[in-house]
């Protein structure tokens, strides 16, 4: 089976989790009898065409500009259409087109109609969810585009039960039309070095016998970082060697730094700004606990990355996070927005080392079993076979 995959981001140009998802998925799909052809925007300095064992990447159109994003993304949709149709004739057809989010929605819809092939759409997040409601005409417009894309899709994929419920209630779709397939994560290549306290974080002012509490994510209200800072203020006195590293950037940066200063925690809280993956993985290997207190979280790939690095986690009971972590087993879970509970959980995990160790080992085991990309590609391919009405060769699906 041949699948045409549309994605507006793809490594090395990665904005969020979507690009990585498409990358890993398309690479594992050939293991399940699916040849994948990924269309994505051109990136300066990257090859226009790449091919590895059953996965083909085509970089087309113009690279993402710094401004005028909207005209560019619609123009990119027209490029997608052109390339898709040309490939269709060149490769003697596709069995299915798979679109990721509304940004490639128009192309997905046109290609599906004009080539008469089914359309599968993955909704990674919704405009309404991201903004907790629709407050501006642009948000309303994006919501409408999402709604029409979903209506015209043959099947919808999303990454958590939380997202599935959100999609069903926002867009009034039949639950049979939606399949939940989680995001995957690879084990941290540095995870073997865990416990090796020599990971040098002196550039962030971390000393060898400091306890490290780590958070990473965009600094935006939906991630609940002010709750984390508030909770850390309660922990700071009881754990004089504890330091909080906050990685990432966003609209709230200034406000959060001011908050840390007001609480007199400037020397205990480190704002690193943007962190490359490699440094992130290094910090994970040194961290004593990773904390994700999100208010809205469709999936929560970050917590999987923390778990895959063998770090004990504390999360809020929001969306996808809540589904991934089972309280007391693979991490600790607290009520959204509750500083006191969050502080208590951080204190517990930084004192009961045995429990922390048990939870993190269990989490690693779970990652290996449930969140590996081969399993996810397998589940996705089953949806492809079902939707396109093609029986899988080995007879698993009729």
């Amino acid at each position, binding site marked *: 089976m041949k699948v045409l995959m549309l994605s507006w981001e793809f490594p090395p140009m990665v904005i969020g989790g979507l690009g990585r998802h498409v990358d890993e998925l398309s690479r594992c799909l050939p293991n399940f009898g699916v040849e994948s052809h990924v269309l994505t925007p051109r990136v300066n300095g990257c090859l226009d065409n790449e091919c590895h064992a059953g996965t083909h990447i085509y970089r087309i159109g113009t690279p993402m500009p710094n401004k005028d994003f909207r*005209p560019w993304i619609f123009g990119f949709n027209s490029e997608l259409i052109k390339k898709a149709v040309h490939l269709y004739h060149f490769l003697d057809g596709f069995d299915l087109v798979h679109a990721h989010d509304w940004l490639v929605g128009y192309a997905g819809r046109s290609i599906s109609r*004009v080539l008469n092939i089914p359309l599968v759409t993955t909704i990674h997040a919704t405009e309404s969810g991201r903004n907790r409601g629709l407050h501006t005409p642009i948000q309303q417009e994006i919501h409408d585009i999402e709604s029409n894309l979903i209506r015209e899709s043959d099947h919808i994929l999303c990454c958590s039960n939380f997202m599935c419920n959100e999609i069903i209630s926002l867009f009034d779709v039949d639950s049979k039309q939606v399949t939940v397939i989680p995001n995957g994560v690879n084990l941290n290549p540095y995870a073997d070095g865990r416990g090796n306290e020599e990971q040098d974080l002196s550039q962030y002012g971390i000393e060898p016998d400091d306890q490290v509490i780590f958070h990473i994510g965009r600094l935006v209200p939906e991630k609940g970082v002010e709750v984390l800072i508030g909770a850390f203020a309660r922990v700071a006195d009881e754990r004089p060697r504890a330091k909080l590293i906050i990685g990432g950037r966003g609209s709230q940066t200034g406000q959060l730094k001011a908050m840390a200063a007001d609480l007199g925690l400037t020397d205990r809280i480190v704002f690193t700004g943007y962190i490359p993956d490699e440094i992130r993985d290094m910090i994970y290997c040194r961290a004593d606990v990773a904390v994700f207190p999100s208010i809205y979280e469709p999936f929560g790939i970050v917590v999987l990355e923390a778990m895959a690095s063998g770090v004990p986690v504390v999360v809020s009971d929001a969306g996808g996070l809540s589904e991934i972590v089972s309280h007391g087993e693979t991490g600790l879970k607290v009520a959204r927005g509750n500083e006191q509970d969050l502080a208590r959980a951080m204190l517990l995990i930084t004192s009961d080392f045995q429990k922390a160790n048990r939870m993190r080992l269990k989490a690693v085991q779970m990652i290996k079993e449930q969140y590996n990309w081969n399993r996810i590609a397998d589940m996705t391919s089953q949806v492809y076979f079902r939707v396109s009405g093609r029986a899988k060769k080995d007879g698993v699906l009729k």
Partner: protein
Amino acid sequence: MLVLHSHLPYLKHHGEVWLFEAMAETYVPLVMTWSRLLAEDIHACVTISLSPTLIQQLASEYIRTGFVQYLKECEKKARWDERHYLAVGEQELARVAQDYQRFYQEVRRSYQVDLGGDLLGAFKHLRDRVPLEIITTAATHSYLPLLKDQSGLERQIAMGKASFARHLGFEPRGFWLPECGYYPGIEEILTQHGFKYVFVDGHAIEGGLPAQAFSGPYGLSEVEVFSETGLSTYSPYIVKGHELKVFGRNAMISRQVWSKDNGYPGDPHYREYHKKAPQSGLKYWRVTDRGLDQSSKLPYDRGRALQIAGQHAGHFVKLVDDMLKEAEKMGYPDPLVVACYDTELFGHWWWEGVDWLEEVARQVVEKDNWHMVLPGRVLSQRSLLSSANLFESSWGAGGKHLGWSNNETSWMWETLAKAREELSRGEGPLSKWGERAQQQAIKELMLMESSDWFFMVTNNYTRDYAIKRFLEHYAKLIRLTSLVKLNRFDARDQSWVMKIEQEDKVF
């Protein structure tokens, strides 16, 4: 001179409700009104522009059958609404629902019995009996000043005219420039195709600030000020150095009807366009107060609204009267006031608009110092016209191209250029199927060129639909041109080409 430009984009097989609404609320009532006037021996001159896309759809059996079905459904919805409003004790709304049932019954009866299910035939029939001039426009209503492609321009004009002649049985003499979009250089080709006259917006002739200077999301800095020429729309002109004649739209008269803020349609007693009943989608309320939100709208009272329409007609006729006197004082002998509107404004957008038109026609007949005229007749009576240089212009926001060409639509123009490139690459003799695919690809290009998509994207008016349509025609074009290049049509390709030929049978 009253000019009504009738156009809808190609909606057949792509969601036809919009077309059915215009047929029920505007075209049928308009034709019936003019027939009624005729029966009373009132000969009200009107120029009707019919776009080729509209003509093709009105002629289509599929649309004609679908329309009757649509009318039946509307009647049924109104009946449900009436029952519902009676049940909840909303007497006034129930009465409006009753009016709707009568309205849709009447339209259906008129359409099927009086007009024989054939609106085009009805227009033609009227033309034979009353002073009515029917003209046409570009094939798919493309915005010509930005087409900038000679063969594309040729197609828009030639195919539009051919389609018109095929369906209406005569050749149109007047050409409606889509959106009044004019650029110097278009005269030659229009003349070559037998067109005698066009309409432009007032500032194309007079200069000064365009009538639509401040509409749309644009600041003053983006509005071009055209230098004053001293010419006036009170007179037709001959385009300098050409044979083509031109009429200029009268800005003040246009604003009086069009303007959102000061125009007639915003009157508190007229039916509110935007508030719809949740189930049926029918409209039961009056404008009330434009500042109020939807929930505070009061029930519609048709009797009162019609009274106002009568008053507005009187106001309008008086306005033209004063204007003509003023023009004569200024030294224009036999001055001309040209009023151009989108036909769908009357009835569809402005529910009482057709009644207003009727009342205007009745009142003008009473005038002995002026009367309604037709462009062809005016030109034949005035042998010596002054010549004028026209400004590149349109009737849209800013007076030029902003309404169709701006940051939101730049990608559409780029895509259009790419589509044209794909089309021109075919070389060598084509097989029978190659020829069919090539012809269909040209139609897809022309469907992309409709000014409607650009306008809808600019104004964020059902933008999703516009982008979807634009890109879908593009996708079809790419597939068709790919097939032409490969020149290999297997059974699957052939049946697909046939399907698309039916789906997008715009000519």
